[in-house]
């Protein structure tokens, strides 16, 4: 186990580490580099500092982790047995919702039709609603194709909940990609779409229209076309 203190080159760096610890401990939400940098004295190398802190806490009861590009402290995974009392009641996800979530996560951006194609069955009313409500899935944009269907992707909350640093951390994503199983086509081609960046729209996506985000509108009747109305 490393000594967190000897890792730091100077008293000044130690001061900065203390600040970083305090900020990340106090934060209600994961913080990104920019937010941290704004709070710390000018000219501090945030990345180096974060890595130092991450290392210092690596083997402790609380770890510094990066989720979706943001930093947060959380309890060490191996201590989950201790935390029974803190567990929150989970929503039960149906098998359909679970599969839909996985498809959206690995194939994003994915349209409803694409999800249905992979599952070989239409998505029942409410399945997407449940995922949207859980804030694990969000509407990303619209596919630039006839009917301009809405595309879905995962949210920051998804990254946070599953402790993913980025989408390339999705379990098994590399193997799936290599096997061509994230392709929409038979892997004769074996060219595979990498699950794209969460925030940036892809080339074939348009941003959502204003009305798309109206809460009651989109998904309740299982017909994407309604969004166009």
């Amino acid at each position, binding site marked *: 186990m490393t000594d967190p203190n000897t890792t730091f080159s100077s008293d000044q760096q130690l001061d900065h580490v203390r600040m970083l610890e305090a900020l990340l401990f106090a*934060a209600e939400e994961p913080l990104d580099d920019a937010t941290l940098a704004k709070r710390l004295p000018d000219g501090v190398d945030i990345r180096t500092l974060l890595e130092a802190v991450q290392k210092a806490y690596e083997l402790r009861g609380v770890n510094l982790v990066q989720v979706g590009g943001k930093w947060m402290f959380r309890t060490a995974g191996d201590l*989950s047995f201790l*935390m029974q009392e803190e567990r929150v009641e989970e929503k039960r996800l149906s098998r359909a919702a679970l599969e839909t979530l996985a498809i959206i996560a690995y194939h994003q951006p994915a349209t409803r039709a694409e999800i249905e194609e992979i599952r*070989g069955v*239409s998505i029942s009313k409410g399945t997407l609603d449940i995922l949207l409500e859980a804030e694990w899935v969000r509407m990303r944009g619209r596919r630039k194709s006839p009917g301009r269907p809405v595309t879905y992707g995962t949210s920051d909350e998804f990254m946070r909940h599953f*402790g993913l640093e980025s989408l390339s951390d999705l*379990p098994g994503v590399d193997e799936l990609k290599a096997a061509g199983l994230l392709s929409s086509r038979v892997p004769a081609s074996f060219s595979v779409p990498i699950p794209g960046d969460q925030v940036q729209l892809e080339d074939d996506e348009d941003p959502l229209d204003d009305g798309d985000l109206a809460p009651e509108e989109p998904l309740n009747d299982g017909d994407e076309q309604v969004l166009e109305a």
Partner: protein
Amino acid sequence: MTDQTDIEEPARAVETGSGLSSSQTAEDPFTAGAAFNEISQDDALIIDVKGYEGPLDLLLVMARTQKVDITQISILALVEQYLDFIAELRRLRLELAADYLVMAAWLAYLKSRLLLPDTDNEDEPTGEELAAALAFRLRRLEAMRESAVKLMTRNRLGRDVFARGAPEGVKIERTSEFAGELYDLLKAYSFQREAQIHVNYKIVRPPVLTLSDAREILNRLVGDIAEWTPMDVLLAQMPLSDIARGSTIASTFGASLELAREGAIELKQAGAFSPLYMRIGGASKTPGQ
């Protein structure tokens, strides 16, 4: 009703053979295949198929009964198994969702392509290509299922790992400060001071020739003129130096139209923009008459 149990059995059989359900630990509510457990005795005839998440799911479950590794399954055997199953359900006159029938039709086609020698038609995919497409879809669905399980068994926030229970947060201290611009202040002052000024306004008549005045003047002037006279000449005689000329012309012209209609004067004009002549009405008759 013995048929009922007959139907239920094969369905259950494939189900328990599924490697999927065993890989999903029952203790995890997220991953338990809840749909499988909802088959009740009364509804068995209908729900039995509904226990599957569509035809692809049914195929996947059947494939699982063939081989643990679905890359090794015999597509032809799988197709036959599916078609037999559907045929049995139809024999029992069970209602089947269209999805299952569409899949059955497609699989029947696939079967024929696999059994018959390839045609030379380049546009049609070969039986092998079709089989590969089906295998791909099955593997892809299975991959997503396995991924869902892996995802759900990660250390999840709020279940396995925890964020700070009572974060202090960043306290935002809001102080409100009044803001004002000198301009607004002066405007407010001027506005209300002016509002309190009591003035008597005299309404000044605008310097125009009213229609009725023009009519009166014209009546008087034309009364003396029996010969055709240009309007300009009449206008020159009008004693209205401080009135705008445009207004005088407009009102005089308006008045002349009124008077002409009443027969008090006559008007003539050779063409557009040429001088307008007027004379007293009835001047064509000899004055003596």
